[in-house]
């Protein structure tokens, strides 16, 4: 065996074959019909040594414009937040990252307790009674929440704000396609309304859409445009119709903004990548899922619970497994087998380091810096405001030139520009979604604003 990951030597192989009672390796595979056996080598490149692999990967890395040397003003659901060094020192401990799902609780107390702590932190942030051990991402968490609501209410329609992340809505559409559950989208208030509500869900349209078939209302706050939605009023509408309110919330914002639980939401879901997880080109991410108590036994995915051992000491196990696929098979609440344990651990360590003060400070700086960038952009006269409502970390402007062109030119200045909203919202043609996290300094923001202004005035050409 030539691979350094396969310890069996040629001599050992012979001895083992003899012990098994076969003459050759081929004989071990005799159950495979001859016509099915691959008669050629797989057409894949010759093996590389570790050193060669490293070198090849470096040539690929060179083609990537990553945010360590490009200033990132792009968000739209994935954010470039600061990650303390201590986080990866914990998550690189092999006892955590090379373990499987904790099926043997006695030797899995580390991961089980960390999940319990994670569940607690998510419950605290969202103001909910319980959280699961995490799901694939915010989008799939929303899909699972919609399923839960439809089953709980025995109703077949979900009302979804169009100001919910388009990526989430796409996943929701494909997930529910064959479920018999329909989706109705509710428009946001567009235009130049002066009542500080533009960019938020149109509550008149929402009211008109609610009926006895409404299983849930889905609202995101801060929504895709960065704008705070009125969860409280919307949840009252849901309650009046015996529908569930599903709130999609950013966990960093919850360091400062009122929790969805306190505002009346039944289920809170969202993307917890901003809690210490790298952007990783969009994966892995970390979907959180938290509920009020009536829905606990209907949650999808793994859940850790506290119990005692035979000597009465505190310990943790995976629990409420009667919901799950390995017990219930086709009657399970979900087909999910894995969570994103390592990403959840990352979030737990991140939150522990930040503490309530640090999280608040991150949230505050996001507000301050995005507000500063917004005002500075408007001041240049090269970009117009689009909505008038308060926002968190992210805002929409309409620059004098198209976002696509602007982004291309910014890239040559080592700046990753904002998100072109026309891709998902034809009515927002020319609108640009800009994110400013706590990582951006005043100098960097000033540089960004100057470049945007210059490019818009035709001052920079590629």
């Amino acid at each position, binding site marked *: 065996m*030539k*691979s350094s*990951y*396969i310890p069996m030597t040629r001599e050992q*192989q012979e*001895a083992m074959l003899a012990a098994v009672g*076969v003459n050759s*390796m081929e004989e071990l*595979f005799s159950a495979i019909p001859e016509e*099915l056996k691959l008669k050629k*080598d*797989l057409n*894949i490149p010759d093996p590389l040594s*570790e050193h060669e*692999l*490293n070198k090849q990967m470096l040539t*690929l890395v060179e083609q*990537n414009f*990553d945010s*360590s040397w490009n200033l990132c003003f792009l968000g739209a659901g994935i954010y470039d937040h600061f990650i303390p060094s*201590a986080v990866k020192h*914990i998550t690189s*401990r092999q006892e955590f*990252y090379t*373990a*499987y799902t904790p099926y043997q*609780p*006695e*030797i899995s*107390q580390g991961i089980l307790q960390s999940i319990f*702590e994670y569940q607690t932190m998510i419950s*605290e942030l969202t103001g909910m009674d*319980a*959280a699961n051990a995490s799901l694939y991402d915010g989008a*799939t968490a929303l899909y699972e929440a919609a399923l839960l609501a439809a089953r709980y209410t025995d109703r077949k329609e979900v009302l979804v704000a169009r100001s919910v992340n388009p990526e989430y809505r796409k*996943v929701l*559409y494909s997930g529910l396609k064959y479920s018999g559950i329909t989706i109705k989208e509710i428009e946001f208030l567009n235009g130049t309304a002066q009542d500080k509500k533009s960019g938020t869900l149109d509550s008149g349209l929402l009211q008109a859409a609610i009926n006895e078939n409404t299983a849930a209302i889905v609202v995101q706050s801060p929504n895709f445009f960065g704008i705070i939605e009125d969860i409280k009023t919307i949840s009252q509408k849901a309650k009046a119709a015996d529908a569930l309110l599903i709130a999609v919330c950013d966990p960093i914002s*919850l360091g400062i903004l009122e929790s969805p639980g*306190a505002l009346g939401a039944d289920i809170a879901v969202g993307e917890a990548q901003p809690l210490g997880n*790298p952007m*990783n*080109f*969009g994966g*892995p991410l970390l979907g959180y899922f938290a509920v009020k108590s009536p829905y606990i036994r209907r949650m999808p995915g793994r859940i850790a619970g*506290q119990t005692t*051992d035979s000597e009465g000491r505190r310990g943790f196990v995976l*629990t409420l497994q009667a919901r799950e*696929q390995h017990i219930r*098979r086709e009657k399970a609440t979900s087909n999910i*087998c894995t969570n*994103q*344990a390592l*990403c959840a651990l990352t979030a737990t360590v991140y939150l*522990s380091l930040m*503490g*309530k003060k640090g999280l608040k400070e991150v949230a505050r*700086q996001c507000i*301050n810096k995005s507000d*500063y960038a917004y005002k500075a952009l408007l001041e240049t006269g090269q970009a117009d405001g689009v909505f008038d409502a308060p926002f968190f970390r992210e805002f929409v402007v309409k620059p004098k030139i198209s976002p696509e062109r602007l982004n291309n030119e910014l*890239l040559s200045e080592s700046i990753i520009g904002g998100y072109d909203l026309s891709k998902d919202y034809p009515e927002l043609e020319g609108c640009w979604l800009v994110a400013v996290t706590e990582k951006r300094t005043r100098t960097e923001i000033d540089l960004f604003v100057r470049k945007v202004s210059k490019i818009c005035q035709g001052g920079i050409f590629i």
Partner: protein
Amino acid sequence: MIRDERLIFEKSVAGRIGFSLPENDVPEVDLAKTFGEGVLRDSEPEIPEVSEVDVIRHYTNLSKRNYGVDSGFYPLGSCTMKYNPKINEDIAAMDGFSRMHPLQNPLSAQGSLEILYRMDKLLSEILGMERVTLQPAAGAQGEMTGLMIIKAYHISRNDEKRVKIIVPDSSHGTNPASAALAGFEVVHIPSDEKGCVDIASLETILDDTVAGLMLTNPNTLGLFEEDILKISEMVHKCGGLLYYDGANMNAIMGIARPGDMGFDIAHVNLNKTFSTPHGGGGPGSGPIGVVKELVPFLPVPIIEKRDDYYVFDYDKPLSIGKVKSFYGNFSVVLKAFCYIMMMGSEGLKSASQAAVLNANYIRKKLEDVYDIPYNRICMHEFVLSAQRQAKNGVTALDIAKNLLDEGYHPPTIYFPLIVHEALMIEPTETESPETLDAFINTMRRLAGQAETDPEKLKNAPKTTYVSRLDEVKAARTPVLRWRP
């Protein structure tokens, strides 16, 4: 060892900090004025206030109460707990990969796109499929994606009466669960006396309401479905499609391919076969490959190469849409890519051969002391039964718990459901014969003790941080979070 049972919350000291952030250098926004009533938090969330050293000690101590592949032998059947090469972790952690935003201009992410594109090609070749989507985040999501494709395919042919998905009684629980979620009716077929799909039963079920059959091959007993060509012919003849659950792909890399067996859709678990770590329960990655006819139904985007550039192609009118945000678990895909690059064709084949030899070696050395209900040459895993030991009161669970005291992660227990007192053993190729021999000796000793002193085996584990935990209590009175 000092026993510290406290949660991180119970170590919190008001006013202590563990963060280091730059000072705010822009004007402060007046929060109350900007956001108005009811928008800001009334009370602070109970996030602990601890120092960096508190955090490091706390989680380092927790890690010591956990067991990973690097800790020791982990023969957890169906989970392919092979060694996770370190170089893959280092490469995935490079800034140039980890600090890429998924929505940045694809021209500024050509390195990442190239990996996705080449991985599609590599996995297509290994599976014998036409194209692969890397979007599913785990095996179960791959199954769900595959089933949605099956549905979309039949609907595209106006063949809407196909409502049934057939799964063997030995299948993974995710199979029927995924099928039900995708809106199918689940039909179970029994295994025959050889532990394979019962062809006669299959014959009686097949009709024009069958959408497809889900099969893992080798199956969960570790046995190759010898009649696979017959099965695929039967299913195709009635108009159904064949789905390959790739959880057991580690047995046949470079030896046989699902595509050649007649499967139309196949998933692989990169977090099994392709060496990416399981992370204590995730993140995984469950790409699926499909035959040519099903390519139009794959999730968007597909990565294509045009004029020397890699691009995302969203223009697929028949696509089932998106099953997950963006392009899947990129960093997991990247680690698996590195693994394949270092193994090459010969290395992958050697891995499967060694995995199969290791499994058979253990099987042979334990067959006289444990029952093996389907005892013949197995593939990468096999299933023991502790029913002989159970007569003396020593169950599969007891054996598993005693293995904890011996320093092993136990095999999968009580699965597959068709074997009583099942212990499913999958050694993988990354274990040395010395490790296998030591494990065999332990298993033999336990079998002996089950005869001579069964009571002694009832109280394990004794050396772990906690002893047996009360799972009934945990489920009856759920405590799912700490409260101040």
